[in-house]
């Protein structure tokens, strides 16, 4: 029989079923929750959910009755809603569990489960569900509860009710590209008779076609508006950039075309003008690449709950976090974040501050001791008394530190700025000299040549170089799980000469900690007993210890757990105690030796005594990520590498052995890290900081480039310019080398476009610039540059195996 049940998988979620008791006809379920969801879907003709993707369900959760009671709070509800008018409301919820087409199907048909829902629509990339519903028939709370029951628990956090920063894709840019493309295509069509007739075209037909081209000009002028605006602003600020010659070129093309066409003296340059603007805009579009699943703008509020359970006059109620008052009593359950500074009044508090400090091991907090905001409770439910309200709590204060507010200049490419400057001066000089040279002989020709120089020198190819090179690099990095905030980060990365690594959470893996034992050896049967004893406890440390030991499970007699102190029990003739030093020392016959006493400083050490004799202690040690020695070795060839650690120097020897010759600074608090980077920068160093967690956020922001190392995409990554997935950290040296190669590509591409410009200038200065020459040269130069940069970056990436 046992063999059979091993093969049973839940029809809803696919997890293995403990037995075959929960079933319906021929379908088996792992829990009543899953069965309930199945029946609900089946009754409402939504069972095709299972046909789309077998076992597509998410294991049903038991819904806590009051878990979403806070959504009945009108103030919270209104802030979460997109709009509310008349009978209808619209809300957009983030559902991280969406992963397949069956999810899309179920959630878009959810109106069959709640008739108050008018329409529901998924954005798969953003994992967002937007629901339009009648609020007189259903409520936000009911919707969220329904979704939770189906296994799609919406992520609701404090950031959702803050000021909404809408990050919309640049719709206007796409519109402009569309308009420019439309104009470009049509004008090329109108220009072909002129190109192919070699001047034999009937003059009235020619005029007709040129007028048709001319009526497209408003579209092109609208599409190129940004260049004129930027050029105007630059001149106003007495600053020269690449947009000035661009705007001058586009402007000249238009004015000359207008005069030629209206005076019937020529066909104008509308073809070149539309092509130019179209190519420029494709560069702008290519430059932008958004990684939908990532957000660089998140702050700590995205990790804070919306509400908290408050105990008052014997009644528990959910209140918004910002309504917490001093002296309130809060109830924090397992895995909930403590939103305000408070002290413990009841329960066994084990606080995980990894979100704030990056330190993985949880800290035990005794009765009446202070718990800082941002800590997460692991284990049982605790009760806290509030010390400070939200605005004055530790994490809010830390966040408001000036280093976090600082805005970095990442939006200006220094290379393109410099190129723009030299180029503008060169063009201005050439055009004026050409004008002065011809002016005495023929003023008309002089003006023609002056404008021709401005037209042909229009630095379209130069302007396209950076968007395409950086844009391509950005994409290749993204494919390798290294996500840059924007394309300018490529340039900033290429300038780096110092790399600073944070130890905790960056070099070490917060998800992986190893248990070590120090002290007197214990026998095999004792090990079995300890393993079995610790299995009885739900304490996270007990669980890790249990997993780290080997041996068969045995039955423990007289097991008892003293909350916040430790556990004990009997097996055979052993009496085993595990817990804090005080707890095991209390009845010990002999005191602990010096080494063991010293170990009591660390909260996470668990002490062991057998038969009233202190044996030793178990400690948690963070383990280093794999392959780091090689990464640092490679980085050291090109960069000055240093390590900053917030911990004490207990692991100094390990670090020195792993990373020989690397300077390591211990005891660096968040503030120290910021100042350390500042001091390096004041010596002219360009600093790359690699870190994680809120404790590094200030340093990440202070550094020229800050890279956040993240376990998952949802990790906390404030202040960073780039997010690197932790398991790809070994590729870091390649990423950095690729950026320096990208800069070489930019210079080479500048060279190519200058050659084209010289050829064009020859035609212009000698007065031989026919519209058809411009129409060939300008797209050709742009196209060569685009192809060159894309191919070059791809080859470089191949070379570095990216």
């Amino acid at each position: 029989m046992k063999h059979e049940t091993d093969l049973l998988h839940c029809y809803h979620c696919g997890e293995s079923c403990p037995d075959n008791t929960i079933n319906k006809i021929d379908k088996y379920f792992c829990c009543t929750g899953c069965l309930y969801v199945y029946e609900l879907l089946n009754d409402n003709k939504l069972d095709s959910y299972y046909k789309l993707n077998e076992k597509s369900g998410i294991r049903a959760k038991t819904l806590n009755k009051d878990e979403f009671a806070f959504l009945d709070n009108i103030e919270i509800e209104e802030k979460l809603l997109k709009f509310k008018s008349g009978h209808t409301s619209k809300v957009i919820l983030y559902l991280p569990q969406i992963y397949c087409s069956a999810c899309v199907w179920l959630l878009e048909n959810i109106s069959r489960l709640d008739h108050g829902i008018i329409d529901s629509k998924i954005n798969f990339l953003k994992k967002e569900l937007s629901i339009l519903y009648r609020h007189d028939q259903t409520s936000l709370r009911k919707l969220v509860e329904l979704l939770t029951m189906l296994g799609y628990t919406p992520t609701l956090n404090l950031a959702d009710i803050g000021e909404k920063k809408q990050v919309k894709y640049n719709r206007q840019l796409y519109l402009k590209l569309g308009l420019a493309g439309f104009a470009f295509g049509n004008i090329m069509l109108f220009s072909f008779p002129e190109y192919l007739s070699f001047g034999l075209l009937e003059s009235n037909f020619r005029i007709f076609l040129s007028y048709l081209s001319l009526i497209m000009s408003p579209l092109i002028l609208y599409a190129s508006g940004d260049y004129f605006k930027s050029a105007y602003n630059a001149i106003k600020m007495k600053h020269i950039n690449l947009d000035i010659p661009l705007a001058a070129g586009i402007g000249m093309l238009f004015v000359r075309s207008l005069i030629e066409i209206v005076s019937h003296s020529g066909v104008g340059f509308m073809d070149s003008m539309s092509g130019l603007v179209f190519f420029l805009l494709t560069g702008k579009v290519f430059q932008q690449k958004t990684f939908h699943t990532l957000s660089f703008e998140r702050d700590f509020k995205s990790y804070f709950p919306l509400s908290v359970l408050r105990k008052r006059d014997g009644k528990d109620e959910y209140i918004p976090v910002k309504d917490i008052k001093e002296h309130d009593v809060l109830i924090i359950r397992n895995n909930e974040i403590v939103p305000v500074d408070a002290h413990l009044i009841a329960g066994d508090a084990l606080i995980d501050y990894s979100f704030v400090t990056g330190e993985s091991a949880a800290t035990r907090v005794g009765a009446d001791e202070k718990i800082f905001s941002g800590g997460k409770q692991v284990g049982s439910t605790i009760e806290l008394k509030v010390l400070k309200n939200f605005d004055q709590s530790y994490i809010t204060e830390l966040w408001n530190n000036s280093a976090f507010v600082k805005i970095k200049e990442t939006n200006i490419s220094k290379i393109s700025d410099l190129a723009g400057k030299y180029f503008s001066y060169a063009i201005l000089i050439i055009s004026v000299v050409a004008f002065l040279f011809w002016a005495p002989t023929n003023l008309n020709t002089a003006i023609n040549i002056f404008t021709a120089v401005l037209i042909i020198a229009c630095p379209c190819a130069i302007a396209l170089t950076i968007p395409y090179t950086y844009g391509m690099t950005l994409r290749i990095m993204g494919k390798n799980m290294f996500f840059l905030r924007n394309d300018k980060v490529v340039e900033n990365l290429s300038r780096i000469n110092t790399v600073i690594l944070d130890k905790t959470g960056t070099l070490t893996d917060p998800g992986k900690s190893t248990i070590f034992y120090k002290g007197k050896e214990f026998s095999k049967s004792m090990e079995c007993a300890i393993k079995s004893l610790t299995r009885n406890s739900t304490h996270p440390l007990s669980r890790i210890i249990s997993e780290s030991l080997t041996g068969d499970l045995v039955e423990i007699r007289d097991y008892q757990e003293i909350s916040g102190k430790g556990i004990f029990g009997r097996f055979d003739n052993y009496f085993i105690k595990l817990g804090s030093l005080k707890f095991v020392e209390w009845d010990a016959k002999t005191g602990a030796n010096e080494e063991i006493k010293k170990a009591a400083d660390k909260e996470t050490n668990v002490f062991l005594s057998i038969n009233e004799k202190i044996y030793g202690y178990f400690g948690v040690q963070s383990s280093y990520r794999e392959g780091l020695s090689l990464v640092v070795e490679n980085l050291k060839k090109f960069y000055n590498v240093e390590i900053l650690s917030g911990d004490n120097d207990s692991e100094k020897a390990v670090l020195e052995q792993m990373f020989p010759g690397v300077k390591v600074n211990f005891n660096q608090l968040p503030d120290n890290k910021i100042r350390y980077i500042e001091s390096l920068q004041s010596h002219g160093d360009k600093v790359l900081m690699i870190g994680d967690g809120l404790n590094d956020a200030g340093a990440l922001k202070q550094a020229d480039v800050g890279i956040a190392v993240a376990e998952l995409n949802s990790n906390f990554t404030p202040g960073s310019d780039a997010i690197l997935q932790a398991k790809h950290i070994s590729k870091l040296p390649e990423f950095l080398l690729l950026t320096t190669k990208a800069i070489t590509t930019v210079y080479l591409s500048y060279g190519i476009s200058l050659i084209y410009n010289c050829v064009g200038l020859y035609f212009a200065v000698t007065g031989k610039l026919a519209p058809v020459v411009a129409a060939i040269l300008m797209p050709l130069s742009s196209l060569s540059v685009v192809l060159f940069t894309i191919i070059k970056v791809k080859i470089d990436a191949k070379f570095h195996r990216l």
Partner: protein
Amino acid sequence: MDVIFLLIIISFTLAFGFLIAFIYAMKHDQFEDSVTPSLRILNDLDAHNKHIHHN
């Protein structure tokens, strides 16, 4: 030769139609999410009782 004038006007009108269609699609967020529709099309198992609403 004169027919070319007519053809050009026709082609221009057609292209203008496409431009209008493009602007319409743009304004109605059709470019906002290009992935979900590709998943949605697989799911039209019982389209007969699906209610489609537009806001």
